[in-house]
Structure formats: structure tokens, C-alpha cells
């Protein structure tokens, strides 16, 4: 077990270094000099040279990389060229928005998928199960970007019940000390603010959740139906328990493990989806900032955001693998 964990940590580290190198090389091939964009028209050659030196862009690629790595080790991700603030501050300022959105989407996906799977199992071999299967197939076939647009049309324009842009109504006075608006509004018992934030977050979160909900629904239903044929389930039936009790209390606890593993892996795809969904809903999270950074050629910021995403992805994968190893007795030895 320990050996497996160490090996996994080493490969994770290699992956992160690989990501850092690739981003570093790729964004330095970007045509268009970011320095030229920063200076007012009429700046002299010397001004350009001075700023280039300030951001370290005059050195060779390996030298730049080493300087960057040295900084990162000390928690310094450089300074954003457009915002002129430390990259780490900017990124950490936006991270809570993206985390809240992702977690909300995950919760919605589990609820929707769970309800679909349980209903499908309860009404198996009927038209209801058929309808759920068709809905699952549709939800899976179309990515979050298109669901987002459909939701904007349906619940932002046709029946305008939710907000379709931003994270919170701009005119509201926010008393928050952190950027975890959703969480903090609950802690402060400001339910008026909480409702406003949820009304902004619901559609983007739902758009992200729909494909994952379909996956959960399909897999959980499949393993539930398999479990329903096992002897111990039949036994509890002969004891006189009702169908609902049998599904929820007997079958579900045993059917849920494979789904849990899959949810972990799929969660990283969901986080990746926030980039375009945040853009679509003008939600002020990391992804939206990333797209702006690319358009503005803000090299240090792009670098910081991509690395942060990679860290989140690999961390989620690592946690999933370790949890699975811990939960599955067959993998506990030797792994």
C-alpha cells in the first residue's frame, strides 16, 4: 500500500512538471509582444527593453523556467501583466467562485442521477425506465456548453426565473470577508444574499451537472439492477420488506461503490467544463479569468491558472485512487 502511494505521488509530480514545461514553452511561442500591449503609444525602445527585463522576458527559455520554478517554490507565481497584481492573489481570489460552482454542480448531478437511477430501478422493465434511458442518452450525447445555451433560452429568456450572467447582483452590498460567497452568506445567515447567489449559480451549475447526472444515472441503475438479483436481496424480500426498503436499504449501499469511483474521475471533466460555462454565464471564476488572460496575452497569469487547474485535476484523481484503494479490500495489499 505504502509503496503504491509513493509511486503514485512520484508520477503525479512528474505529471505536474510536464504540465509546467509544456505551458511554459507553449505560451512563450505566443506571437504578439505582451510588453508592447502594456506601454502607451509612443513609448521608446528603452522603455520596451526595461519592461522586458523587468518581466525576465529577455533571458533564454531554460533560464526563464528556472527563475519561474524558484519563485513557485517560494509561493511566488509572478505578477500579472494586465492587472499588475501578484498572480497568486488573483488566482486564489477567483478559485472560491469556481470551487463553489463545481461543488454545486456535483451535488446537483448526484441528486439528479441518483433519483433517475432509483426511479428506473423501482419501475424497471416499464415505460418509465425506457423514458429515463432515453433522457440519459440525450443528456450524455450533448456537452455542457450546449446545455448551458439551452438553459439560458429556457429559464433566462422564455421563463425568466433565474439570472443568466454574473455571480451576484452588482448593486447588492456584500459584507463578505472571503470569496466563498455561497458558503459565507449561509454562515452569516444572510438568506437574501444566498438566494440571489443561488439564482445566479443554478443554471451554470445545472449545465455542468446534466452530462454527469446521466453517467451517474446509467451506472448506478445498472449496478442496482445487478444487485437486485442477489440472494441477500431476495432474502430481505421474503422477510416481507417492501420494494422501496429493499432498494434503498439493501441494494443501494452495495451498488454505490463503482459509481463513486466514476464520479471522482468525471468530476475532473466537470471542473474542466467550468472554463467555457463561466464564460457563457459571465460568471467571475477562474475559467473566465483564464480566457481573458489568453486574449490579453497575460503570460504569468495564464501559467498560474493552468498550473492550478492541473493541480486540482491531479489532486482529485489522487484522492479518488487512494479512496478506492482504501475501500476496496482486494487492492489493499500490494496494489
Amino acid at each position, binding site marked *: 500500500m505504502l509503496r503504491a502511494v509513493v509511486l503514485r505521488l512520484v508520477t503525479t509530480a512528474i505529471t505536474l512538471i*510536464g504540465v509546467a514545461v509544456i505551458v511554459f514553452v*507553449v505560451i512563450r511561442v*505566443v506571437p504578439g509582444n505582451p510588453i508592447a500591449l502594456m506601454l502607451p503609444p509612443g513609448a521608446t525602445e528603452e522603455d520596451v527593453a526595461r519592461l522586458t527585463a523587468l518581466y525576465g522576458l529577455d533571458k533564454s527559455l531554460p533560464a526563464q523556467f528556472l527563475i519561474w520554478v524558484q519563485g513557485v517554490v517560494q509561493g511566488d507565481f509572478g505578477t500579472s501583466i494586465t492587472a499588475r497584481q501578484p498572480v497568486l492573489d488573483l488566482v486564489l481570489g477567483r478559485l472560491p467562485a469556481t470551487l463553489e460552482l463545481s461543488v454545486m454542480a456535483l451535488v446537483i448531478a448526484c441528486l439528479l442521477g441518483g433519483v433517475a437511477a432509483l426511479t428506473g430501478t423501482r419501475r424497471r422493465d416499464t415505460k418509465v425506465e425506457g423514458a429515463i434511458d432515453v433522457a440519459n442518452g440525450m443528456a450524455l*450525447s*450533448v456537452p455542457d*456548453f*450546449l446545455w448551458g445555451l439551452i438553459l439560458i*433560452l429556457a429559464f433566462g429568456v422564455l421563463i425568466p426565473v433565474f439570472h443568466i450572467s454574473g455571480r451576484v447582483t452588482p448593486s447588492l452590498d456584500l459584507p463578505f470577508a472571503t470569496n466563498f460567497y455561497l458558503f459565507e452568506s449561509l454562515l452569516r445567515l444572510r438568506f437574501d444574499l444566498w438566494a440571489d447567489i443561488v439564482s445566479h449559480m443554478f443554471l451554470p451549475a445545472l449545465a455542468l451537472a446534466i452530462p454527469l447526472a446521466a453517467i451517474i444515472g446509467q451506472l448506478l441503475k445498472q449496478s442496482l439492477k445487478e444487485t437486485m438479483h442477489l440472494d441477500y436481496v431476495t432474502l430481505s424480500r421474503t422477510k416481507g420488506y417492501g420494494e422501496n426498503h429493499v432498494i434503498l436499504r439493501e441494494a443501494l449501499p452495495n451498488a454505490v461503490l463503482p459509481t463513486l469511483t466514476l464520479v471522482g474521475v468525471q468530476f475532473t471533466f466537470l471542473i*474542466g467544463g467550468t*472554463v467555457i460555462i463561466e464564460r457563457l454565464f459571465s460568471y467571475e471564476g477562474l475559467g473566465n479569468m483564464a480566457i481573458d488572460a489568453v486574449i490579453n496575452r497575460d503570460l504569468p497569469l495564464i501559467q498560474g491558472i493552468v498550473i492550478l487547474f492541473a493541480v486540482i485535476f491531479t489532486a482529485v484523481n489522487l484522492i479518488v485512487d487512494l479512496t478506492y484503494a482504501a475501500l476496496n479490500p482486494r487492492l489493499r495489499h500490494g496494489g
Partner: protein
Amino acid sequence: MAVEGIDGRGRVRRRAGMRLWLSGLWLALVALVALLAPWIAPKDPLMQDLFLGRMPPFWTPGAEPGFWLGTDSLGRDVLSRIIHGARVAMTVALVAGTITALIGATLGLMAGFLRGWVDLVISRMIDIWMAFPPVLFSILLIAVLGPGLTSIIIAIVVIDWTRFARVVRAEAMAQGAMDYVASARVAGRGRIGTMLVEIGPNVLPTIAVLLTLEMGIAVIVEAILSFVNLSISTDDPTWGGMIAEGRASVHQAWWVLVFPLVTLFLTVLAFSQLGEGLKDRFDPVLR
């Protein structure tokens, strides 16, 4: 992934068949429209007329005759732009999909059959690729390569080859352990020869399924890149570009968003259903 499965095999087969036909029909229609775009589009997709801005579709009051699906804010014909946008979508689907399949499948085949250091390098690369958020990666690549159709195709290939490599690698590993491979080797075929002649044909069905799915993904990626304004030049009609414009004016002119969105939705759905249908067809359990 047998989505249907209500009763017996007959029903599954029939439904899967219908799904294949409907999807194929829609895609054939889109491809035909893309080919014939200059001849069947009722208007010039680039022609602007500010006096005809945001005209509603034909069945609503105030519609302008000749502009069936209305006009956008610059007075351009929505229908003609959708028809011309099909060209970009289909080109990206076919070209990017095929190149991605070729490169990804080759790498996957090599990793899965040759194993050793080849597998080590390719697997590690797949791990690194999986740690990138794909949308952000594609936007970054377009920023580097500059806008244009070629850049989009390159970006899709660079990002999505892992989809093929992962699956084909696993498949090649499974096939490599089979007796027919061993007997081919005993019969004197070289390693590369065995890989190409013996294993290659056996992973083709899998590649065909993945390729169909990849075409749908390519269409979406192009739309997303157009949406963030990084696709081909902003004048040329693309579904994603139209959607971006429609999103911005959704409260004033819903039709600018709805029609390209429906087209894109059906196309992506068709590619995906076609892929799933093919998967069922190739699946020996259902055969």
C-alpha cells in the same frame, strides 16, 4: 452502452437501427448543404443591411420576405449564415476527426502492443494531457497558432489524440494477449508487421466508433472557439460565432441564438447517436 434494453434483443436492434438511420440522414443532409452552400443559400451570408437589422423569422409579424429565419443585428440573413456555417463545421469534423484518429490510434497501438519504453513515454504523455483542462488548452493553442481553420484543426488533433490513444492502447493490449497474435509471430511475422496486419484490423471497429464521436466533439470545439471569438476570421459565418452573437442579444432577438443552436444541437446529437449505434452494432453481445 446499450441505452435501450427494455425487452429482448429484437427491440434493441430495431431501435438502434432507427437511431443509426435518423442520425445518418441528418448528417448526410448537413454535409449536402455544406457542399452546395453557395447555390442553395438564399442570400449572401456576409451582406449587411442596417435597415434590415434583427428582423424576426417568417411566421412572426414584422418579418421581412425572403429572410426565412430572420436577420441578425447587422441585417445578415440567419438561414444563409447557418448554411455557410455548415461548411466550416463539416470540414473541421472530417479533417480534424480523421487526423486525430490516425495519430491517436497509431500511438495507442504502439503503446499497447510494443509496450516497454514506448508505452512508458506515451502513457506518461497521456497522463500529462489529462491534467490540462481541454477547453483552456484549445484556447491557449489558438492564441499561439493564430486564428484560422488550420489552427483549429491542429488544436483539436493536439488535444484529442489521447481519446484514441487511451482506448486503442487498452484494446491492443487485450488483443496482443490472444492466440492468433502468438501464432502470427510463430509463423514468422515481425513485431511491426503483426501490429499493423493482425492487430490493426481488429481494433478498427473501435476506432470507427471513436472517430464518429470525435467528429461531434470537433464540431463542438469549433463552436466553442468561435464563441470566444478565437475561431476563423469574425466575418466568416460559423455556428459558434452566430451563437456568440445570439447570446449577446438574446433578449432582443432570440432567433439569432435559437436557429444555429438547434442546428448545432442536432448535429452533435447525430454524431453521438451514430457513434453509440455503431458501438451497439459492433458489440458481439448484441449481434
